[in-house]
């Protein structure tokens, strides 16, 4: 039990793929052969350098087996349900067909080695976004298994998320009642800042917050939120405090420039409060300003608790951002996730 809360739901845990050998059993013969013959040993992502302190807490270094998650998190904290969000670099590879095969293998690995081994687990359909047809195909393939509760992309892709070539993917999400999770991370098609490549990982990790601003700006201005009002967007490991200041400017600009995006017929802040949800790790604020930040957010339904296991965001069991008022905890740790994810409410496995 964590902070006295029962039935807690963790919306962001990261099973770690140890190497490509773990995925090859889930590939067809051609791709299995490619992996071996071309010596593709690992496609771990520079978004989380394997030995960087942020990538794994000292006591969470083992994170590639379901037993690790059970022992480190699910059992001691009494987690009722946790959503797996694997971050292996399948979305980064350049070849669309390879991305399709590797992503498929990743999703099947998650299903067989995590979902099938612990009934508390749910997962995300990791999408190969190179080709919208491939992404839709993957949604159609896995959506019948109702333990897959959302689709998942990285925040920095090849083109901004709102662009219309991605809309068939969002249509498929709506069709199956799947939120679209956007997780921190880059496909490295562009520098992680709009002014080029930074020197230090601290800068690179910080730049996720800029990526989320641009992505959310794209989803709003291109009209995705308006076009798909049933679609929930879940921002994972995004940080929280950047959101309202960003919207204060976007909404002000929109008042002066809405002639170019007439389909945005509601104030951006309203659209976001209705359709966008965020995980609370990391929160990115000192405890004394948290109440004010929540007041600006202006909606108790938006934040969902995440451990972000095994990433190092906090020590021990300080998994709730310090300063979070106790009155918010029932929604933060359970209610908001149930409201966001229809499939969590079903509470049954496939």
């Amino acid at each position, binding site marked *: 039990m964590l902070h006295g809360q029962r039935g807690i739901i963790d919306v962001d845990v990261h099973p770690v793929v140890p190497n490509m050998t773990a995925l090859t059993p889930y590939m067809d013969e051609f791709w299995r052969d490619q992996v071996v013959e071309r010596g593709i040993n690992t496609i771990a992502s520079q978004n989380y350098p394997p030995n960087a302190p942020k990538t794994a807490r000292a006591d969470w270094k083992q994170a590639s087996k379901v037993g690790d998650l059970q022992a480190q998190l699910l059992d001691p904290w009494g987690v009722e349900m946790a959503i797996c969000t694997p971050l292996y670099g399948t979305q980064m590879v350049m070849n669309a067909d390879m991305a399709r095969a590797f992503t498929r293998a990743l999703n099947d690995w998650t299903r067989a080695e995590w979902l099938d081994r612990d009934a508390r687990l749910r997962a995300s359909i990791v999408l190969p976004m190179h080709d919208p047809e491939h992404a839709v195909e993957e949604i159609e393939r896995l959506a019948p298994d109702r333990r897959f509760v959302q689709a998942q992309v990285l925040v920095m892709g090849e083109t901004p998320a709102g662009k219309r070539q991605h809309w068939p993917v969002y249509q498929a999400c709506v069709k199956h009642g799947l939120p679209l999770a956007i997780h921190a991370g880059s496909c490295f098609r*562009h520098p992680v*800042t709009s002014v*080029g490549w930074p020197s*230090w990982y601290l800068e690179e990790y910080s730049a996720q917050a800029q990526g989320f601003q641009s992505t959310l700006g*794209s989803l709003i201005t291109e009209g995705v939120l308006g076009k798909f009002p049933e679609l929930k967007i879940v921002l994972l490991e995004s940080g929280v405090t*950047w959101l309202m200041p960003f919207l204060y400017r976007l909404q*002000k600009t929109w008042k002066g420039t809405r002639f*170019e995006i007439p389909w945005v017929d509601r104030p951006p802040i309203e659209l976001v409060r209705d359709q966008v949800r965020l995980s609370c790790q990391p929160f990115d604020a000192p405890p004394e300003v948290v109440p004010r930040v929540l007041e600006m957010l202006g909606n108790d339904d938006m934040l969902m608790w995440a451990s972000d296991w095994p990433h190092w965001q906090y020590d021990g069991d300080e998994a709730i951002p310090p300063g979070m008022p106790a009155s918010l905890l029932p929604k933060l740790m359970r209610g908001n996730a149930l409201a966001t994810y229809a499939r969590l409410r079903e509470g049954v496995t496939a």
Partner: protein
Amino acid sequence: MNVIQPIRGKSKPPAATLGLVDVDIHPRMKKPTDLNPWLSQCWQAHLETYGIRARHGFVGGQPPFPKAQPLACRRDAWPPGGGTPASDLDFLRFQLLDQYGVDVGVLNPLQPSGQGDNNNEFSAAMAFAVNEWQLAEWTRKEPRLRGSVVVPYDDGPASAREIEKRAGDPNFCQVLMMSRTAEPAGKSRYWPIYEAAEAAGLPVAFHAFGYSGWAMTNGGWPSFYTEEVSEHAISAQNQVVSLVVEGVFERFPKLKVVMIECGFAWVPNVAWRLDQHWTQLRGEVPHLKLKPSEYIKRNIWFSTQPMEDPERPEHILDIMSWIGWDKILFASDYPHWDFDDPLLALSGAISAEKRRDIYGGNAIKLYGL
């Protein structure tokens, strides 16, 4: 926003008791050949033949995201005697300096200044010419105006030489860069600029804009001008992070940086985020002796326009107090369409004493006016 011809008499904001300093005025040339007196024949020919070659592909000053208004200017800022907005000193005096009682106005020349051009040598020649033009056409004719030392920022040593030429000249009060440089602003290629500026006692201003040559978001090119405007604040965030994390303020502790037209509501969350993740990642950056937020508090100033617009006015007070009341400078952005009227820009929720500092007191200290 897009006001038309003033309907009031001349009036200075009553709270501006220490003076009204406008840190963001954009003078324009009357015609492209205005710089010729200070360009060699070779560069004159280059300018005429090839124009400014920006990192976005359009010629003739056409931006890739067309503006909300012609030249992004107020409709009423076109001088009655002809020419483009802010190209006529008398009309600028009438519509801005005299109208609001501006005591000091800081000039930030934009394109065709040659900043960010593909050709660094050409950019350096243009920077020299633009600086001479500011002296000849503006600051020597109007004592209320101060120039900015335009530098060819992607060439650090050439920029430093231009700063050294202007050091000690009271007509200039800062160095001017654009917020979208070819590499993050903290990289060592830009250090000669900071070294020269620190030595000359000139703050370095980053004005929102420019084209870095990279996609405008870290996930590709957006579609709309609305997004481009938001991206100014976003790229400025990256620049602040880079300046801090690369250790620029450790190396040049007296350097003053001014972020102009970048917004400011994001400053607290960028500082908090850096501090939070520095907790786990500080082993990577032992050159930082202070918490990241402490450098921001010590070394960086922010201009007001365009001010973010929270739903509740008291939230702008929270944001300003988190940044520091002594770090905020008034800017009008004249003659652009999103101009902030000095009489209307600052919320009455801000105390008169703090408005006094934002209107003038902070800038007077920063620039030593």
